[in-house]
């Protein structure tokens, strides 16, 4: 009896062990943290520097060229919008100091290209406004497709953006980015994640310390701005207040040089970069992957844009 029950236990426990091996999933393992290289790429997507500005300049210019060609093929006129001169190596942004000289934020150059301090209606919009009403509908259809045929982009924050996919603009975006959705992501995802990072940054003591140091340095040079972004905005608004482009250009050079000096002393932008990496380490892997996809798509789109601007043939996706 005793030996039979012992045998029974052995068989039973053997069965349980086998069953356990076959039916229980492996214990959950924490997902591998993103590689440092991936975090660097994700951080670059959330940082506007000279390279980002140049890429944006090329993408905008190439899209303008593609849209103009497409509209002409429909027998319609299109007035290309000038984004201004290509950003120089000395361009300083709120998030990165440019390497070249003279230091500039590129504000006066952009406003100069837009005419009248950027307050005028773009020439292309003026042209369309003066078309007879009956022609405007046909023109808009050719440019953007139906205003009722929309697709939805849902961002990580839950925000939804709808967008048109048709017409010459849709075609140009597909040529550059592979899909209209990818083109919209290029603009919307950095904004969406960036606002979350800005909220994170505002509660980081290390960043506040560097910012205070930057503010003191700038005040010593005669400029009382709360941060580099505020400095750029304040300069950008001068033309709306009647400041001439010549004076604005001189002012922005002086401020950008002071900003560069104060950044070196305060390590403000380096601190932001470190905080950004810290922030990204706390994010879900899905968000990092999303930023990596934006980076990859943008790199490809810029390659296409360079070929478009050089006049080389570009195959349709």
């Amino acid at each position, binding site marked *: 009896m005793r030996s039979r029950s012992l045998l029974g236990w052995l068989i039973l426990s053997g069965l349980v062990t086998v069953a356990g091996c076959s039916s229980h999933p492996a214990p959950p393992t924490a997902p591998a943290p993103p590689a440092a290289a991936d975090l660097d790429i994700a951080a670059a997507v959330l940082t506007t520097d000279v390279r980002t500005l140049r890429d944006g300049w090329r993408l905008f210019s190439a*899209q303008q060229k593609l849209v103009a060609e497409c509209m002409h093929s429909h027998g319609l006129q299109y007035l290309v919008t000038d984004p201004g001169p290509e950003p120089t190596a000395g361009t300083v942004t709120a998030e990165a100091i440019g390497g070249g000289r003279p230091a500039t934020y590129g504000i006066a150059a952009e406003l100069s290209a837009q005419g009248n301090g950027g307050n005028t209606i773009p020439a292309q919009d003026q042209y369309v406004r003066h078309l007879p009403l009956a022609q405007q509908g046909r023109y808009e259809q050719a440019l953007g497709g139906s205003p009722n045929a929309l697709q939805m982009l849902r961002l990580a924050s839950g925000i939804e953006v*709808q*967008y*048109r996919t048709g017409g010459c603009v849709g075609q140009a975006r597909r040529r550059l980015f592979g899909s209209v959705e990818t083109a919209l992501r290029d603009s919307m995802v950095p904004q969406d994640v960036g606002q979350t990072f800005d909220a994170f940054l505002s509660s980081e003591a290390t960043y506040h310390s560097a910012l205070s140091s930057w503010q003191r340095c700038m005040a010593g040079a005669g400029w009382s701005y709360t941060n580099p972004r505020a400095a750029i905005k304040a300069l950008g608004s001068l033309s709306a207040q009647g400041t001439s482009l010549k004076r604005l250009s001189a002012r922005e050079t002086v401020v950008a040089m002071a900003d560069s000096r104060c950044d070196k002393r305060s390590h403000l932008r380096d601190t932001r970069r470190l905080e950004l990496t810290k922030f990204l380490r706390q994010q879900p892997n899905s968000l990092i992957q999303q930023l990596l996809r934006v980076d990859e798509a943008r790199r490809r789109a810029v390659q296409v844009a360079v070929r478009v601007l050089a006049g080389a043939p570009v195959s349709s996706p």
Partner: protein
Amino acid sequence: MKGWASLMPRRGRSVTRLGVATALVLGSFLMLPVAPASAAASDCNATQLCVWVNINYNGGPGRFTGSNSNWNNFPHPACPYNGTWNNCASSAVNDGTSGLGVQLWETIGYHDGVFCLPQFAQVADFTNRQFNNGHNLNDRVSANKWTSACHD
């Protein structure tokens, strides 16, 4: 206006007015409930940035062309803050034809927070959307500026 909660009474009133008007026109022959005219983002015309008082493109649109540093200059009686589009918009459409994105600014003179809407894109509901400084976009837009760099 803060989304549907504040929109509903107004819609109720307009439905009633429309219903009465329809009844007057058609007499007692047709006393059917009348649906309100559906608001649509497609009310926006080419070349314009359009904004609405309420979410889902209701109450407007206000039509903006060119860059405008002070929306106090654009009256709209339905806007509760001061009867102008300043601090009033709850949804928007960028129907510009130039390829430029449009920046929506938090403060007059292009100050404080900013949010950029690319060409042929639209947002039906500002209530969950923030400027880049974390402030809510709803009922806080005060200026618009067209830009070729629509990333931040």
